[in-house]
């Protein structure tokens, strides 16, 4: 019997399952992704940013909305680590002096005193997800006052602490990106899937819809739509409206991709084999088709988040998106809109750096994921 002879030949091979042999898809993706150093670093950076978005108050020094006329336009304060030759994390307090002729405050470092920096210290009280109250903060100084103040990234026109505002802006901007992309994914998979799996007239209708949406010039459309939002809406309402607008316009690329995947997968032998062995339609879609491109969807959406973030920033910067008292990166950058404030307080541009960092990290991560996404290619 041949099956006997072949069996005996198999015996001579080693039977031990190698890790590779029994590795499911996600593991293969992870092994490939690990080799991508830069993407791995980006993943860590993003992890930090996400932590900030989850617990902005914990990372803040001061209530982001607390203004103080006497502390407007204070420059950033650097952190020093040694004092008098011994290790002591501290900042130097600033001393303001009004210029006699211009009547502007001019800030200088008060070299005589130091303000020791404390970690896991208590500060203003805040609520965590509406669950409990705490006053724990990552760092801060003891008993801040006008004379003893600490503003890591300086203050704005109204004397609000920019670092704390940046932390809160991170939550809003990142979550708009994530939620908008989440909605886009949902729409993209649903409509793209229908289009690609069923074909026929649904396909034609959805294809035309995508073509129309893609042929619209995005910037004027966003501007028109967001400008149409009622001025008296609350911060939350505008927030959701903006997210919705971004995702309604943003799902088309993903929809196209999903459709293409479904179209080509429909012809794949293993899908045909599943169909012939009696699998139901939902099993074919959810067990055989979707898993083959989930990693692609993840990669594509990772690359879509930065676009959403930039869109939001851009809209808010123009004053068409979120408006104060909401805090987002775009709103923060709005403060740096006129030349005067840039000249006077260049640190107001620092939130721009946050945008750049986040967008870069997301893009690198997305690229890494995309490269690792298909271990069978």
């Amino acid at each position, binding site marked *: 019997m*041949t099956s006997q*002879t*072949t069996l005996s*030949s198999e015996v*001579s*091979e080693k039977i031990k399952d190698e890790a590779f042999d029994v590795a499911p898809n996600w593991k293969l993706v992870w092994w490939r992704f690990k*080799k991508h150093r830069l993407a791995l670093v980006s993943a860590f950076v993003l992890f930090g940013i996400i932590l900030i978005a989850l617990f902005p108050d914990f990372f803040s020094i001061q209530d982001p909305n607390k203004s103080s006329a006497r502390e407007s336009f204070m420059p950033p304060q650097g952190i020093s680590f040694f004092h008098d030759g011994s290790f002591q994390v501290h900042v130097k307090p600033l001393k303001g002096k009004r210029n006699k002729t211009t009547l502007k405050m001019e800030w200088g470092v008060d070299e005589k005193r130091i303000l020791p920096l404390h970690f896991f210290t208590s500060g203003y009280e805040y609520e965590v997800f509406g669950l409990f109250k705490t006053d724990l903060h990552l760092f801060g100084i003891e008993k801040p006052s006008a004379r003893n103040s600490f503003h890591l990234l300086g203050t704005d026109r109204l004397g609000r602490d920019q670092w704390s505002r940046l932390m809160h802006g991170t939550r809003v901007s990142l979550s708009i990106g994530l939620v908008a992309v989440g909605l886009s994914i949902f729409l993209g998979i649903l409509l793209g899937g229908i289009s690609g799996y069923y074909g026929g007239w649904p396909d034609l209708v959805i294809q035309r819809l995508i073509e129309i949406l893609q042929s619209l010039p995005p910037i004027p459309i966003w501007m028109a739509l967001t400008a149409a939002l009622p001025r008296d809406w609350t911060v939350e309402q505008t927030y959701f409206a903006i997210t919705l607008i971004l995702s309604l316009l943003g799902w088309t690329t993903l929809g196209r991709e999903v459709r293409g995947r479904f179209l080509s997968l429909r012809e794949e032998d293993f899908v045909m084999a599943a169909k012939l062995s009696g699998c139901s339609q939902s099993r074919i879609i959810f067990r055989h088709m979707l898993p083959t491109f989930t990693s692609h969807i993840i990669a594509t959406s990772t690359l879509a988040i930065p676009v959403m973030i930039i869109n939001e920033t851009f809209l808010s910067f123009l004053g068409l998106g979120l408006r104060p008292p909401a805090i987002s990166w775009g709103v923060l950058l709005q403060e740096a809109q006129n030349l005067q404030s840039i000249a006077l307080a260049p640190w107001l541009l620092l939130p721009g750096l946050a945008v750049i960092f986040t967008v870069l990290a997301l893009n690198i991560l997305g690229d890494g994921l995309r490269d690792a996404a298909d271990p069978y290619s």
Partner: protein
Amino acid sequence: MTNQPLLEVRDLQTVFELDEGTVRAVDGVSFNVYPGRVLGIVGESGCGKSVTIKSVLRLIEEPGRIANGAIRFRSKILGNSSAEMVDLVQLPAKSAQLRALRGNEIALIPQEPMAAFSPVHTIGNQLMEVIQLHQPVSDGEAKKIAVNRLKEVGVPNPESAIDRYSWELSGGLRQRAMIGMALTCDPLLLIADEPTTAIDVTTQAQVLSLLRKLQQEHQTSIIFITHDLGVIAQLADDVVVMYLGKVMESGPVDQIFHNPQHPYTRALLRSIPTVYTKNRSRLPTISGSIPHPFQKRTGCPFVARCQEALPEQRCANQAPALKAINEHQSVSCFLHGEEVNVS
């Protein structure tokens, strides 16, 4: 073989250094190509046939490199006298000499002619370009030569075919046009990498008989690569049998098919079905499968599947070298112990 070889490959080693490990795609390959003869290289998928000829053409790119060996070619344009051979391995990559060699004296027919033709130029334009690179002729004359070439390779209506694009032609015609282009400069050596694998049997028969006819007319030397033993039997004068980057056996085609000496050649010939086999008969098989290229190997590459492997792990521990067993035939197997030095 009394006359001198046109191409001498000695102990060629080509490796690919990948993240997963080093692939020794070609691992000590030696063979000769004689003027006016067809050398067939046969072996299963992944055994290193394409890498061998890419090495000869010096077309190996990162992460691959030629790690060792010599590729000596009797070039008319590079050599000073007809007796001198040029070692292609020593020539700098991308050098003008190599380019001149590839264009004039060594021509390639790739496996997929679709990729070799540009889709945006007509067949005629591409043929004329090649002709004018080698001969200082006017456009009109180049066109005439091109038409003649196409006629020679049996393209019907060459005058109209010349104005068509490669993708408008059928697979067989495209392959003919490719052969016509490769022969434009009357190369000394024609290398064909599985030129008929992607096409049908009846078309394959056309291409093979065309190649045979042209070879006899021009007395070109050919290296013909295939995994089809039938094609080898029909076309080759000499045969090199490869397995896992190594030469198992080489010799004249009649010896290889009627007096094979290597266990792999023997097993392979036994296991292929032919149109002569009685129907529903059970074929002798080669057990197991080809090892993965990343797998570390010591000893004879065929040992895991060899039915004649010697006792006491000899074959597993030591790799047999390619030895000449008579004037024409070489084998790398311990069953052929008596050492005769290869020239």
